[in-house]
């Protein structure tokens, strides 16, 4: 069917009726909303075609039809292009181009007997305006989040970074459903190798549909088999712009409400821009707390299981009494007890996430308090394990990145099973495996575990701790930025004695 519309220069001039049937029956398969209006002015016949739900119909009447009807002169293709006050008019001689334009929200105008057709984009955009961030909400700092429209997101990024070095490159990916992807970076800071690598991966990518930014990251990341996310997906424009300024590169994807940042390190998933907005000592404290939280979250329950199954010698006598008391009614071995409880907690979390917000809150209360109490009273688990499991669940929720927080929570299960099977040996085996895995991991061919290994002492600022801004004038070395300094060092003040 479509073969008829192959590049065929001799299609025009033609009759307007012919054009209409070719488009309507041939290209659009008799789409009910395809509108073709025929008008006659003096001796000229012309046709206006569009899809009713894709365009601003008012604009077509106001600028196109009114204009042509009211003026007395003779119209042709050139006057259509020059005298209609809509932007981006195009002359089309190929019927397939005309069809595609109409599909993307253009209006096509053809005057009988002319040798080309004119199209004007007048798309109707029904999009969500940028709203407050939901998944990565900040208490303190900018509230705006990316929305689904690429134009809006680009607008936000350019508004936050009005710098002429901000480059944005366009890629179109997807064979079946193409989406536009923008590679954004600061050309005076970002390292060319990272940009080149990202460009290479995007060019290499072949897929039918990109779907979402987090899906795109799974297409282009280094190791698809790892549990850990290797590219950062964020919905916060302030975070996105801050990382670009530090020498990373960003991706914005049309139809997706989040941007992608690359390269990342393991520690960067524990950072939040809020650490920057609060004072440096608070920021440091909160960051360290998150890291400790992560460690506790993967340690506490496995440790409990290992100690109670194999190594009760290590539990002090005083604690052993109360532990024994609360465990005396539990019929399961510690592994099973822990697995049941952790699984239960995961269920509550997942149910709370799936349900509407209001029901979700009730769900949390019912699940957490009522069932939790009942579980202990029924002798399914011990009190102490409930405390431990709740603590480690809490700790895992402090991680700002949703993907990393899920990874940490899932990680607990193999750790619990291993410590249930082989005690501390199993636990440390898992730790060793994890560390080796993280060491082998890369993000955009850069080590995932910097600044810890390869050790970059200067980068510890702004990854594990935070220094006062005046003292941290170096950009992270691990991104190897072109311009290493954020600003010139402030003049040193003379140290004076105690003021008298």
């Amino acid at each position, binding site marked *: 069917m479509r073969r008829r519309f192959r590049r065929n220069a001799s299609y025009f001039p033609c009759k307007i009726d012919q054009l209409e049937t070719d488009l309507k029956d041939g290209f659009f398969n008799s789409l009910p909303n395809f509108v073709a209006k025929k008008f006659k002015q003096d001796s000229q016949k012309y046709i206006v075609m569009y899809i009713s739900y894709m365009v601003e119909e008012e604009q077509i009447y106001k600028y196109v039809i009114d204009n042509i009807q009211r003026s007395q002169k003779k119209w042709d293709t050139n006057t259509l292009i020059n005298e209609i006050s809509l932007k981006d008019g195009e002359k089309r001689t190929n019927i397939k181009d005309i069809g595609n334009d109409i599909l993307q929200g253009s209006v096509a105008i053809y005057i009988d007997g002319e040798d080309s057709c004119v199209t004007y984009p007048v798309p109707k955009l029904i999009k969500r305006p940028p709203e407050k961030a939901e998944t990565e909400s900040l208490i303190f700092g900018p509230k705006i989040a990316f929305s689904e429209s690429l134009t809006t997101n680009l607008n936000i990024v350019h508004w936050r970074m009005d710098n002429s070095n901000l480059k944005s490159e366009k890629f179109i990916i997807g064979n079946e459903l193409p989406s536009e992807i923008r590679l954004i970076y600061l050309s005076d800071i970002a390292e060319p190798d990272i940009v080149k690598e990202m460009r290479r991966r995007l060019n290499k990518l072949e897929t039918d549909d990109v779907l979402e930014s987090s899906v795109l990251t799974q297409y282009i990341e280094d190791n698809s088999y790892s549990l850990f996310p290797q590219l950062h997906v964020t919905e916060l424009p302030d975070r996105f712009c801050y990382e670009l300024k530090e020498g990373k590169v960003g991706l914005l994807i049309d139809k997706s409400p989040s941007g992608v940042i690359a390269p990342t390190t393991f520690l960067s998933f524990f950072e939040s821009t809020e650490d920057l907005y609060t004072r440096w000592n608070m920021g440091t404290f909160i960051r360290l707390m998150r890291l400790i939280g992560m460690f506790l979250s993967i340690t506490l329950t496995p440790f409990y299981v290992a100690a109670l199954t194999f190594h009760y010698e290590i539990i*002090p006598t005083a604690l052993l009494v109360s532990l024994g008391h609360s465990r005396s009614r539990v019929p399961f071995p510690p592994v099973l007890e822990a697995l049941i409880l952790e699984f239960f907690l995961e269920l509550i979390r997942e149910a709370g996430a799936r349900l509407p917000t209001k029901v979700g809150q009730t769900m949390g209360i019912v699940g957490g308090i009522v069932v939790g109490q009942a579980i202990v009273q029924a002798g399914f688990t011990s009190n102490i394990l409930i405390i431990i499991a709740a603590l480690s669940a809490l700790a895992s929720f402090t991680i700002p990145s949703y993907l990393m927080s899920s990874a940490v929570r899932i990680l607990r299960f193999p750790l619990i099973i291993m410590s249930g099977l082989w005690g501390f*040996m199993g636990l440390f085996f898992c730790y060793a495996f994890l560390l*080796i895995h993280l*060491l*082998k991991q890369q993000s955009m061919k850069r080590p995932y575990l910097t600044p810890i290994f390869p050790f970059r002492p200067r980068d510890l600022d702004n990854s594990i701790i935070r220094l006062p801004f005046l003292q941290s004038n170096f950009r992270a070395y691990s991104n190897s930025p072109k311009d290493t300094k954020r600003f010139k060092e402030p003049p040193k003040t003379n140290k004076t004695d105690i003021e008298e």
Partner: protein
Amino acid sequence: MKNQLSISEDKKFKAAYLILALHTLQIGVGIAGFPRLVYMEAKHDAWISILIAGVILHLTVACIVFVLRSYETDLHGILNMAFGKVIGKFFSTLFVLYFAVMFFSVLVNYIEFVQVFIFPKMSSFFVAILILMLVWYAVYGGIRVAIGVSFLFFFSSVWMVLLLSKPLTMIEPMNYLPIFESDMKEIFSGVLISSYSLLGFELLWVVFPFIYDKKKVGLHSQISMGFTIFMVLGLTLISIGYFSPRQLEEKVWPLLSMFKIISIPAFERFDILAVALWLLVILPNAILLGWMVSYSCKRAHGLKQKHCLVVLIIIALLLASIFDDRQFVNRFTDFTGYLGMFFGFGFPFLLLPFAIIHRMKGKKQNDKK
């Protein structure tokens, strides 16, 4: 076989990482029982033995670095250049075997350690599989991962040393007196025993081409040796001071016995955790040695490194599951020590004259130009 290796810049690492890589390779299971072994030979003058061993160690490492710097290549290239193709290859193979013996020795010693302390009934085969899986996974990442492992695992286990502050406060100073009571023979056998435990610096031979700033290799390897000697010496001094003479001779692993007395409110017996945590101490050993064996094998015989690694792991697995009695482990460790005396401490000095001649030749050629 090419004498000179060309290694791409992104696979190289800085010489400063050698400090921890060499140190972690030297410290292994042996350190837990080391104070008793020296004490048995040199009594309370053991520290003199360790100091003498330290001096020898520093000289040996200096000699290795000198040889490496004169040839600017790794051990196998040097052997090839100094002895010719056939004999060079023969020596290379001997070194591969020696590294493999060290690898097995690390493995069987740790297995025994675990079986005595935490899981008497756990089969050797199983512990070996746990460790060898990790070795396999890590060595696949190449030398950078192996160095990273030594770096990270050092920091995740070194804090245990701080726990010795408690035994430190309980030291009985009279245990050290009188000084110089042992005779030369006893001190010398103490030196011999200590040198066994200091093996591991052979890593330098293989890793040299991978180092980014080769000028600093000498400095950093000496710092590393100093650090190891400091640790070993400190540990021995604390053990001698803390235990009464009879006691120290009875404790097979004095270090763990010292950990036993530490109890934090949530932790009654620290030694159990320490034995499991010791996995993090011996893993860098096993991984670096595994890399050394497989990479040397590749260098010497042009085989694929993957295949060498798999063969090594299978042999280790068989060996660990067949020979798991204490007698065998002891004899095997002693055997490793004897080999180490020759390959570790002796061989660098054997190569020294060759290196000097090579340097002289190079100078002459430079002068001619």
